[in-house]
């Protein structure tokens, strides 16, 4: 066995191989130059010039893009600056936030109800939930919104009562259906269908043993769901639902078609009044949407961190902690380098 390795060794060891006792010292030629106290030496990290070069190229490309954005007069940054916080834009922003907030809450509540219905033991509830999800995932959001917009033409009054029998409650549809109401209802109906699947996936991701342990302890049904299953399901639900939420933020731009002036609607109408400013106005919308998404992402990080308690042995560091730790190691490294 060891003889078979023999020819490879002298290639590495320029030092006289005849002094080497064959089996023991054969493999690592490095040991020949290692100091006596080498047992707990710090390993010098491998240099990686390829990585340095690609990073440099990427940085140059990035700088070019930034330079183009900043210097190309086509973007009209002065007009961007003029429009960015105009009341007409911020009013639209508030509408976007309102529509998003209402639809996110209603959509999630609806989603939880639909998910529970799909997981229930009643075949009727399961079927209804399945049909709802199937329908609203099939119909484009814009179609739902336009349908609701024309709803008051289809049903002049809404009433609550026994089907085919007497009714107890009457609503005048035209008074009830404000533009905001139509937008929120349309988005919530749509959102609930997707949220239902997100919530259901989360509930299914909880280990069967957890349900059994909760049942074996005799915990009340509601407590089992609210305190045992849901908190564990949320770990899987939060990332998918935030995805959904970000889609919703951008989906609100469709409410423009039911004559509600949200952020995108304001930009669009200002753009048709001042056609020369269309590009800076689109930039304004872009930056505001980016800001909204970024805020959501930050909140997501902390919510996820909260729900990973117990699931991870140590919580992931916050960006601030990571920055601090990074700086400390950098300082330590610089000190060590300058010392030697």
């Amino acid at each position, binding site marked *: 066995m060891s003889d078979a390795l023999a020819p490879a060794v002298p290639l590495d060891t320029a030092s006289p191989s005849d002094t080497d006792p064959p089996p023991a010292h054969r493999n690592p030629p490095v040991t020949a130059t290692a100091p006596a106290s080498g047992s707990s030496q710090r390993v010098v990290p491998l240099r990686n010039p390829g990585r340095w070069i690609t990073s440099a190229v990427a940085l140059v490309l990035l700088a070019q893009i930034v330079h183009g954005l900043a210097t190309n007069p086509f973007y009209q940054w002065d007009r961007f600056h003029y429009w960015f916080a105009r009341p007409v834009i911020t009013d639209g922003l508030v509408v976007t936030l309102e529509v998003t907030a209402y639809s996110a809450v209603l959509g999630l509540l609806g989603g939880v109800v639909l998910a529970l219905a799909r997981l229930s033991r009643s075949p009727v509830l399961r079927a209804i939930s399945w049909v709802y999800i199937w329908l609203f995932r099939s119909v484009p959001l814009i179609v739902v919104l336009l349908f609701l917009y024309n709803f008051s033409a289809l049903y002049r009054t809404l009433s609550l009562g026994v089907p085919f029998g007497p009714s107890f409650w009457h609503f005048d549809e035209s008074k009830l259906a404000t533009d905001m109401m139509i937008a929120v209802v349309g988005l919530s109906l749509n959102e609930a269908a997707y949220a239902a699947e997100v919530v259901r996936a989360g509930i299914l991701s909880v*280990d069967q*043993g*957890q349900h*059994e*342990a*909760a*049942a*074996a*302890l*005799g*915990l*009340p*049904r509601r*407590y089992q769901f609210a*305190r*045992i299953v849901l*908190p*564990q399901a949320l770990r899987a639900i939060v990332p998918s639902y935030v995805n959904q939420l970000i889609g919703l933020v951008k989906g609100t731009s469709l409410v423009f078609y039911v004559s509600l002036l949200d952020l995108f609607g304001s930009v669009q109408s200002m753009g048709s009044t001042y056609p020369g400013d269309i590009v800076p106005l689109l930039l304004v919308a872009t930056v505001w949407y980016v800001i909204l998404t970024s805020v959501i992402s930050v909140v997501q990080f902390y919510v996820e961190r909260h*729900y990973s*308690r*117990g*699931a*991870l*042995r140590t919580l992931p560091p916050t960006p601030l902690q990571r920055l601090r730790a990074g700086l400390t190691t950098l300082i330590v490294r610089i000190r060590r380098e300058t010392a030697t």
Partner: protein
Amino acid sequence: MSVLNAEARSATTHLAADADEPAPVAVEVHGVHKWYGAHRVLDGIDLTVAAGEVTVVLGPSGSGKSTLLRVINHLEQPTLGHVSLGGEPIGVRWHRGRLRELSERQILTQRGRIGFVFQNFNLFPHLTVLENVAAAPVATGLQRRTEAEQSARELLDRVGLGEKADAYPRQLSGGQQQRVAIARALAQRPGVILFDEPTSALDPELVGEVLAVIKDLAAGGTTLVIVTHEIGFAREVADRVVFMDGGRIVEQGTPAEVLDRPRHPRTQEFLSRVL
């Protein structure tokens, strides 16, 4: 290792000392059959466990041991027959000479009085050890929160894990998790505790600490039904050994009778393979 032993041994001294142990309860299994579709898992089980008695159930895998335990606390509903605890039927009630299903709420209340320890612990990972133990007595209205946390701490001391109260289950070893699970079962002050292969998921060196805790419970006079593969342990703690095969009770008796002089060929064959 020696620390763990010390913990387990300290548990020994605490356990017997407890004054207000809940009264042990007798378990009776009456003609229980269980089918999953066409697959027959339990085939007419009749079993009586006297109050305070320790029964160890042995048998090859697939013999229906675990299903029997799960039928006793009604995690599984028997297809035929029923189980009663201290004379009270579980999951059902007598009504005009027939057995009728109870509501889920009533079943949950009954289950609260039966301790169950799972093979895979099934601790709630998002709750601390203390919260795991204190959750059920609070949620079922047995105790107020402060009271429940106080007795949870005492229970954790009894299983030798007093200082782990604020840890999360994943930060503990398997043996420690199983001891927490036993404390969690004890928190409901059950009249009977069922153990479903409590040491099968443990590394061999952690088995001892869990068995030590169970042994102390046995000495304390609680009714225990234990499914296990630890024959030596069965010999030591069992008042009675039940051998199951193919969904039936093949043989039962004292450990000396069943383990040393088995009469049934299936028992002899099983013991010759595991011993």
